[in-house]
Every structure is written in structure tokens, then in C-alpha cells.
């Protein structure tokens, strides 16, 4: 009985002992078939809010209205990977209303070709050619 169990385990384990851990063809296939998708700059879903701040909700509604209707009419491209409106949504969610609005206005003042000349090299996304700028970079207390 014991010998039978050993044989059975040996045959079963035969695969796992030498099967590739990394699926090379699968990885390469995924890489070759990778299509650069548009960065969907919808902000991260808020995990949970203990209390609803009406001013925050109003700002989200206004930004939503801007993104759906006004932004299309402006038809302008943002200099950053994460667009300014999405930066606004995320910064309000992550950093609070006041800091979020202030950082958004600062971002609006920086979102032009001239100011982009001063972006550090390491912050440039070499795939899209745009600058990386996220609200998480403005957290200084960990």
C-alpha cells in the first residue's frame, strides 16, 4: 500500500518538479501583443468614507461635469500622463479638499509647454513622452 502511494505521488509530482515556473511563451506573447492602451485616467475608487463631505462631493460633481462635457469641447491634450482633472479628483480624495484644490490650481498653472521644459528626466514617461505627476508624490509624512 505504501509503495503504491509512493508511486502515485511520484507520477503526480513529476510535472511540478520540472514544469516551467514562468510561462515564457505566454509572457512573450503578452508582451508582443501588448497594445498601448490610452491611460484611462479615472481616479481610484475611494475605499471608504467615514463621513461625507458635501463640498468634496460638489467638487467631484463639477469635475465630472467638466470631464464629460467641457473637456471634449476644449479637445486639448494634457502635458502630463495623469490629466489635470483626474489629478484634481485623486488629490482631493487622497490629500483632502483644501490641499487637493490648491495642488490642482498649481498643476493648472504648470500644465503648459513652457513649464514642462523644467521636468526632471526621471519623471518623463518614455513611452508616452509625457510627464509623470501624481498626488502620491506630494505626501511628505509617511
Amino acid at each position, binding site marked *: 500500500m505504501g509503495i503504491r502511494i509512493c508511486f502515485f505521488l511520484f507520477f503526480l509530482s513529476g510535472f511540478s518538479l520540472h514544469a516551467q515556473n514562468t510561462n515564457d511563451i505566454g509572457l512573450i506573447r503578452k508582451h508582443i501583443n501588448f497594445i498601448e492602451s490610452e491611460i484611462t485616467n479615472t481616479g481610484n475608487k475611494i475605499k471608504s468614507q467615514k463621513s461625507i463631505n458635501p463640498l468634496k462631493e460638489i467638487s467631484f460633481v463639477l469635475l465630472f461635469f467638466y470631464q464629460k462635457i467641457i473637456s471634449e469641447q476644449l479637445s486639448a491634450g494634457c502635458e502630463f500622463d495623469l490629466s489635470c482633472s483626474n489629478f484634481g479628483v485623486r488629490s482631493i480624495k487622497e490629500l483632502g479638499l483644501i490641499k487637493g484644490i490648491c495642488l490642482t490650481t498649481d498643476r493648472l*498653472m504648470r500644465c503648459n509647454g513652457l513649464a514642462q521644459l523644467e521636468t526632471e528626466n526621471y519623471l518623463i514617461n518614455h513611452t508616452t513622452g509625457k510627464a509623470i505627476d501624481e498626488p502620491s508624490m*506630494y505626501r511628505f509624512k509617511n
Partner: protein
Amino acid sequence: MSLRCIVLKISVGIFLFPSPYFAQTLSFDTLQFTKHLKQNHLFIEQAALNKNLQHIHANNPIITDSLKLDLALIYYQLHLPDSCKNTLLSISNNCCYSSHLNQEYISMLFVNKEYSIVQIAIDKGHFIDTSYNVYKKNAELSLRILKRTLTETDTNPTSFTIPPLLFNIRNRYFNPPHYSPAVAGIYSALIPGLGKLYIGYKYQAITAFITNTLLAAQATESYLKSGIKSPRFIITTSVFSVFYTGNIIGSIVAAKKKKKDYYNELDHEILNYYSADINKLVK
């Protein structure tokens, strides 16, 4: 157990036992074949050959470690960073490489940001080769910069040859910018954009100044023509104050970020230097 059962189990096992163990024989010149694969940029085949050779030489850790390094290089060329990192991490701490291979190993570790293992690899390599010793000192310098542990007394540039790029990075490391967030905030409060100019962002200063000036002019006009209680004045002043506060907070935050950005930029340049090193090896 009957003989029929034993035969059945053995035949099932052999049938289901995949081919890799038997695929690779050494009946041809492996080195020449590997060279042919490299010349034709056949990475998938190189990876498969490498894995077969690792199976065959599983009992010889020296050969296996060299093969793993080669495999990591293949994954690097295939732009598979996770596989590259995992392969590098699977190399044993007791690996013994030649000076050339050790250089390759250290460069790969830098590019994959495995700084803890870089130190071990640097310490292990003791070669008479003078060019390797220079490389070793430069790698130590780069590692200390990346870990922020470099001091002026640590490395004396006259004792070994530093490539111009690393020399420049070393000098810049010892001269980081110091911008006070409070000063930047006060400057921006006085004149919008001045805080940004203090930090060194002249174009951002110009755009901040122009935006705030236009909004202030609007608010002033509303005040002069409508008075303080008019809705026009309230709206224009609110908009101006939001942008004015944003300008101040932006300057404060930029001053805090500046040093971090400066060091990150140095790190980025060091990693580019080692990526270029690997690209030279690959060619």
C-alpha cells in the same frame, strides 16, 4: 501488486513525463550553437537551450550560476523585468564568476535595483585584473550614492579612475540644493511666482505670475467698479484667492520635493549608466 499494474504505471509515467529531460544532448558544439542563436537574436531558443543546460548541469553550481546570469540577460533583452529579477535572485550567494562575468552580474543587479546583493557581489570579487578593480571601486561609489551613504572621506577620486559621468554625479551628490519651504512660501505670497523662481523653476514662475496677475487685475476691476459687496467682486476674488493660495502651496511643496527630485535624478542617471553598460555587453 501484479506485474500488469506495475507495467501500466511505469508506461503512464513515461508517457506523461515531458521531454525536457531528454531534449538536450551534447552531441554538437553547444558554444557554437549558442553563438549562432545570439547572432540571429533568437531569444526564445536561447532561453530554452539555457534551461536545458541548467537541467543537465544541475549538480554543478558554478555552471548553473553562469547559465542563470546568461538567462537573466536574455530576459532583459526580451523586456521581461520580473523574470529577469527572479532569475538574478535565484543565483546562489556562493557564485564564483570571472572578472568579466562579475561585472555583468553587478550591472544586471544595479539595473534591477537589487542593491543588497550588489554589495555581496562586489565584496566577493577579488581579481588581479586592474580594470576590474577600477570597475569595483566605481560600483561601490554608485552603490553608496544610491543608498545615500557616501561621505567625502569615503572615496578619493584621485586614487582610481572614475568615468566622467560618475565623477559628475559624485560631485553633484555632495552639492544638493537646499531650499527652505518657508522662504519659498513667503516669496510666493509677496509676488506670485517668486517662490518658484527661488527654487529654480523660471518658466513655472512666469506662468504662475501671469495667471495670478490677470486674476488679480480682474478682481481689482470688480472692486473698483462694483464695490466690495457685489457678487462680481466676490466671485472674482474667490477665484483669485484659490489660485493665489495654490501658488503659495505649490511653491512650498516644490521646495520640499526639490531635494528628493535631485537625488532621484542622480539615481536615474546611475541606472542609465549601467543600462548602457549592459547594452554594450549585449552587442
